[in-house]
Every structure is written in C-alpha cells, then in structure tokens.
C-alpha cells in the first residue's frame, strides 16, 4: 500500500502485489481512473482491471471477513491520504440461466426445421 517516488505513478497494492497506474500530478487537476473488481462465485476469486488497460489478475484476499460492509476513504488512523471519488457501484452479475440456454436451443431447432421444410 503505497504511492511510489513521485514520478506520476500510482500504485495500488493488494497483499504484496504492486499494481501501478498513472494519475495526474498537476495541481489542482485530478485524473480519474476507472477500476473494476470482478468476483467469480464458482472459483471464489476476484480479478482487477482498470480503464488504462491494466489487467491486474487475481486479487489476494486480506482475510475471511468478520462483518458485512463496504468502506471507502481513509480507513486507517496511522496514515494520510486524499482522493476524489466520482462514483462507486457494486452489482451482481447475471449468469446465463438454464432457461436461456433451453430457449436458444429451441430457437435453433425451430430455425433448422424451417430451413428443412
């Protein structure tokens, strides 16, 4: 968890993995970066990507969780920081249901029957 040597490199870390991205250092401008953390319930793994093309791969967990919550901001009493947040959202991701697969198969079958007729 650190920002490195001031050469316009933004580093976001998860566990011991440093994830570098660029942001602006031109006060008072601010350069926004879009991030996406995608969780796969089957594998139990989450992967991080960003709008700058970063494919950060699987993100290490920091533990198993003790409560149910989402937090953003400056969460530690031991450090300093300042960020500007434009938006944040967490959505469940729909999976193709068996019904959808069956409908597609039925439609395909219907299409083939019509072509043969």
């Amino acid at each position: 968890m650190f920002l490195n040597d001031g050469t316009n490199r933004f580093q976001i870390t998860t566990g011991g993995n440093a994830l570098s991205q660029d942001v602006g250092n031109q006060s008072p401008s601010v350069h926004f970066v879009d991030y996406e953390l995608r969780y796969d319930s089957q594998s139990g793994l989450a992967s991080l990507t960003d709008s700058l093309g970063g494919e950060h791969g699987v993100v290490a967990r920091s533990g198993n969780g003790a409560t149910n919550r989402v937090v953003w901001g400056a969460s530690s009493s031991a450090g300093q920081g300042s960020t500007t947040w434009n938006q944040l959202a967490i959505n469940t991701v729909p999976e193709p249901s068996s019904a959808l697969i069956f409908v597609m198969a039925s439609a395909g079958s219907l299409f083939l029957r019509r072509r043969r007729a």
Partner: protein
Amino acid sequence: MRCFALLSVLLLLSLPASFASAGLLLSYESGVAGAVGQAGAADPTSQGWSVNTAGSAPDYSFGQDSGMGGWRITDGTSRDLYFYQCDLTSSQASLMQSQDWAANWTVGVNADAVGRPGIGTVNDYYSAVPGRQNNNVLWIEVANEYLYVLSY
C-alpha cells in the same frame, strides 16, 4: 413446431424471473462529470452511507465537494481517519457469496490535499510528499467469506 414456438415464447417470458436476483447492491454517484471545475458532488451521507470521522482534527480530516468532479476524502493527519461505510444486509451479503458480482469505481488522487478558509489549498501531498498518500482504500467485506482491501 407450434409447440416449440409456444414453449420458446413461454420461456422468454419467464426470463425476467430467472434474472430477478441480478442488479445493483449499493452505490455512490457524485452526480457530476469527472473533470476540473465540476462542482456539486453529492454528499455520500445523502445516499445511505455513514461517515466515520474518528479523530480530533476536523480541519485536516474531512469530506467535501472537490469541485473537480467528485467527492474528496482527506485525512491529513497520522492519527485520524475519515471514511464512508455501508453495512450490507443479510440478503445482500448472501448474494455476494452465492453470485458473481462486480465492483466498479472511479477515483483520482489529489495533490492539494488540505484546504482551509483563509489558507487555501496546500500542495503538499502527491507532488511534494507522495509518501503521504498511504491511507486510501476500498474495502469489501463479507463475514466468513472474504475481505478485499484495495489500497493506494
């Protein structure tokens, strides 16, 4: 063939039910474009987030409309904190265990972290002392499942 067509129509009509559990769990929307000069960002507390301001130096630990396309969170101390939190309901937590989900957020790091009336902003964070940017986090926690701490 008619049976196939009828079955297809019925199943298509049933699709919304199969996707009933998909959707937004929680969010913050600043309501402004992410650019310099864009003022009027919404206070997260107006959208169901609670603020934790444990500390004794409100001049240096605060949330505010940045005027630069979002809500600014600053902790200019090495003893305080300032963050927003939303507790997940049991149903939300259950969904985040059993279903795939995606967290999307847009954020920028500030150079001029601290500003006070009569003093103005102090460009002492990113450019001058980048080591001071070590207390920014997105924290996603589901009990007995996982804890993700994305910090920068």
